[in-house]
């Protein structure tokens, strides 16, 4: 914890400054005696936290998600859509990939299902769907997962849809649909979130593709809020479809190892999936957030097969043994215990689930005690992401909210269709405070939000947020973090990129630890997480006022460990597995050459 005693207040003071009152910020910094008692070098400058909606300025204003709704109230219309970040051209600037949704019309009349925006490096984006080879993609799309599955140095795309999912191989910035030859074009089913991870640590990324329910226009059911008019159904009325696990054969193809790897039986209705390693054995485990079904915890048996322990671990249900409406998910170390905590978004009238590993595969539900629970009780959380919003060294939680029933306001007081997001700032001790209302700006507005993703798209050192809206626009929230001197925070962080050699090329599954003045900060390189979304794989360590990281340790999924000492703050570095030196990555470009 960076600011054990005073941090919460520091947030509040900061917020009153957000929006440009830099002078006040200086006053606060000068009159913050508690800060002097903090561990040396960590919290001298309390930065001012604010976000700006830069969607239109960035050139993303022409995007709009389509549900295809014509009044039939078909279930999938409420669930999309996805989006997030991908550095598709390897220039070091995070580009944006959005799922447009779909319509119920004939495919030939539809617009492209994926919209790719290239980051121009100046805060703006240009639509490059056609140039990137994605212009011909037609589908009722839902989510994306992004990773370098073929280890060729560029980021590939897995695209989940209402029918057949698709895999796009990236060849130097141009995509080719390789779904069929890769062997992932399984049966037509409604899929949701997906994750690339190296289940068997063979250096090739495997794929877990979440499936939701069995639905088609022909099997659509009549559901109603008022007993008369048709409304959107909830998943209880449909049969769940188990998710699929595809083993990467290392030759560009995958094999369906769902049963072989222990992922069957499963109730289906998966909406979120994230990896972790709660037992610290080096093998990636998996948590799946299920909608109205028990969440699943897959512990890796140490050979790439899994055993499900959700109920025993206490992650499956709420504290009363009740299955909630699991949506998005993220996992991280958020307190000084060093144990991983799972965050799962749930329905309105259900708290966000907060499960911290205690020991031996047992978790404890900290929803209430974390102070996230009650605050999240009335909102419906879809995408949620852990990132260090204020660069103070601990992970904060952003939650994208939005209800699924447009008529909910007429039916139930206190609940709205569009809902403002939460930004739970970490007090450093595993308790949080929602500062979104105080931050205001775009966080004061209400959205029918679905996906949430993060990246430092403008390379100013802090981490920005992207959210998608159901039947609405995308929003890019630029983090306007400024330090106590009114300047940028580029010196308050260290950003780390990983490049595997024996491990998979992205370094996914690597555990990266930064030690500053005796304090450990732990992050995990991963894809997936959140809801239908993809965030950057670069890790951001907020350092407060520290000028260097004493020790940077990378535990690769291969088992190799790289250590670096006295790493200067204020830079982005590339860790190449086994390389003796860190590789600085310049603002103007990355050193991530294609293989």
């Amino acid at each position, binding site marked *: 914890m960076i600011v054990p005693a005073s941090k919460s207040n520091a947030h509040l003071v900061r917020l009153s400054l957000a929006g440009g009152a830099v002078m006040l910020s200086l006053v606060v910094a000068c009159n913050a005696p508690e800060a002097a008692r903090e561990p040396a070098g960590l919290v001298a400058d309390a930065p001012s936290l604010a976000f700006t909606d830069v969607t239109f300025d960035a050139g993303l204003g022409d995007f709009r998600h389509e549900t295809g709704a014509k009044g039939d109230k078909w279930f999938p219309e409420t669930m999309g859509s996805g989006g997030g970040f991908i550095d598709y051209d390897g220039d070091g600037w995070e580009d944006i990939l959005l799922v447009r949704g779909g319509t119920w019309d004939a495919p030939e009349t539809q617009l492209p299902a994926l919209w790719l925006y290239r980051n121009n490096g100046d805060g703006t984006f240009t639509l490059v769907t056609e140039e990137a080879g994605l212009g011909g993609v037609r589908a009722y799309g839902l989510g994306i997962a992004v990773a370098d599955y073929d280890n060729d140095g560029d980021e590939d795309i897995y695209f989940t849809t209402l029918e057949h999912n698709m895999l796009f191989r990236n060849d130097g910035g141009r995509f080719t649909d390789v779904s069929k030859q890769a062997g992932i074009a399984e049966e037509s089913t409604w899929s949701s979130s997906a994750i690339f991870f190296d289940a068997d640590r063979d250096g090739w990324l495997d794929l877990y593709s979440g499936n939701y329910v069995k639905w088609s226009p022909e099997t659509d059911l009549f559901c*109603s*809020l*008022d*007993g008369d008019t048709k409304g959107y159904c*909830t*998943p*209880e*009325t449909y049969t769940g479809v188990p998710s699929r696990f595809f083993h990467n054969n290392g030759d560009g193809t995958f094999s369906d190892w769902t049963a072989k790897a222990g992922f069957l039986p499963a109730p289906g209705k998966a909406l979120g999936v994230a990896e972790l390693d709660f037992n610290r054995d080096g093998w990636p485990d998996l948590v799946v957030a299920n*909608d*109205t079904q028990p969440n699943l915890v897959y512990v890796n048996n140490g050979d790439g097969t899994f055993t499900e322990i959700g*109920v*025993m671990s*206490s992650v499956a*249900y*709420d*504290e*009363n*043994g*009740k*299955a*909630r*409406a699991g949506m998005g998910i993220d996992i991280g170390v958020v307190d000084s215990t060093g144990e991983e905590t799972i965050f799962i978004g749930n*329905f*309105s*009238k*259900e*708290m966000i689930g907060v499960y911290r590993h205690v020991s031996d595969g*047992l978790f*404890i*539900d900290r929803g*209430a*005690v*974390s*102070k996230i*629970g*009650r605050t999240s*009780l*009335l909102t419906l959380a879809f995408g949620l992401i852990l990132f260090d919003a204020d660069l103070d060294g601990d992970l904060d939680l952003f939650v994208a909210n939005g209800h699924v*029933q447009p008529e*909910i306001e007429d*039916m*139930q*007081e*206190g*609940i709205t269709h569009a809902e403002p997001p939460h930004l739970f700032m970490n007090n450093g001790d595993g308790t949080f405070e929602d500062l979104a209302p105080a931050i205001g700006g775009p966080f004061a507005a209400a959205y029918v939000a679905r996906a949430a993703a993060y990246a430092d798209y403008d390379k100013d050192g802090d981490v920005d947020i992207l959210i998608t809206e159901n039947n609405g626009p995308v929003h890019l929230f630029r983090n306007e973090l400024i330090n106590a001197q009114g300047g940028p925070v580029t010196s308050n962080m260290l950003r780390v990129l990983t490049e595997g050699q024996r491990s998979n090329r992205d370094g996914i599954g690597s555990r990266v630890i930064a030690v500053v003045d005796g304090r450990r900060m732990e992050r995990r390189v991963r894809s997936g997480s959140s809801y239908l979304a993809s965030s950057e794989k670069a890790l951001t360590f907020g350092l407060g006022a520290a000028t260097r990281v004493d020790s940077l340790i990378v535990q690769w999924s291969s088992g190799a460990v790289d250590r670096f000492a006295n790493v200067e703050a204020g830079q982005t570095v590339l860790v190449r597995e086994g390389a003796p030196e860190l590789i600085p990555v310049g603002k103007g470009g990355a050193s991530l050459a294609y293989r």
Partner: protein
Amino acid sequence: MEKGLSRRKDRAVRSATFVSGVMCVLALSGCLSQPEPRSLAADPLTQQLLIAGSEAFDRLDFRTALALADSAERRAPKVPETYFLRGRIYSAMMRWADAEAQYKKVIELEPGYIGVWNNLGNNAFRQQEYRQAIAYFRKEIAYNPAPIPWHGMGRAYRELGVMDSAQYAYERSIAVDSTYAAAYLNLAILLQDEGAFSEALDVARRGARVRPDDIELQYQIGALLMQLGRPEQALQYLATVATEWSWHYPSRYNLGQALARLGRGDEAQAVLKQAEALRAAQAKIESMEMVVQARPGDPLAHAGLASLLRRAGRYDDAMRAYQVAYSLDPANLEFQNNIANLHLIRGDTTASIQWYRNILQQDPEFIDVWLNLGVVYAISGHAREAREAWEMVLQLDPGHAAAKQYLARLPRS
């Protein structure tokens, strides 16, 4: 009758839109307490009719209760008790608009009638009109500063996310009546949601001291002890609840978790497996409750719910749902047969015989009912009547295997 499972029920259904009404109809005694009718002011015969109507309502015989209320109204149309009783019956049948109309007639006759604003508040709550509910509860308190409307107000504030007001209302409820267990329970839950587990435990224990037989408070104490990391202490509370409420999966779930944390892995697995089966059954019930909420006038929906509740061992709730179905479709003999069966399951052989006989008057060739009648007579030790009933089965269906089997087991004498 099942007590008000306030929070577990609030959270029980995914779509909160459907939740509260259905849940609370099943929990009239605790979650949405209804004041008893006050003393009657009508003429003696009308009084008798209303007392009989109230008794019929208490035993969930909604049809009879309504008929008696109608009779009372015909005799004395200006008696508020009549409309109050009818309002309660309609509320139990989820006929919200009808109930509201009855309560408003009460108010026309006597604005300060005890309980009427409270019950309007309950109806508004069930329809998820929480602000309206609060206004009604406030009005009730103005006339009748009792713990019940304070408690209702607390629940409505909680639904709206106004937690400090909810807490105040619960505290007022306890201040007005320190023995009102439901307020302790919901205050404890409110504090639990806040993460104040120790304070919540203290409140729950205070409640349990005044109402040691309250199973919900026992569960709450057990659950809070689990959250406080004291599984050993939680064990006894959870085991008690699991024994008392065989259908209650939360207690088994937490019991399993407690055992797991105490290193009793095999026992934990077994109990968690039981919890899982109960949870699956409960999920079906909740799904059906959503159907009932959407189609409160559909007798088959109520009957379907009743069937699930019966299978879960929640006989009182099942009886209530069957009675609603029956009141909506009084000619349905299957419903009547199910009610009779349920009486038998609950050990009331006299009532079940009455119901079977009544069905057979309507349909003397209802084979299943003859068979069941024989069973209940046999259980009651009336071998001759049992024989007659089963022989009637064979008369109607000479090859009926069960009847033959039963008859063969009867003593010759």
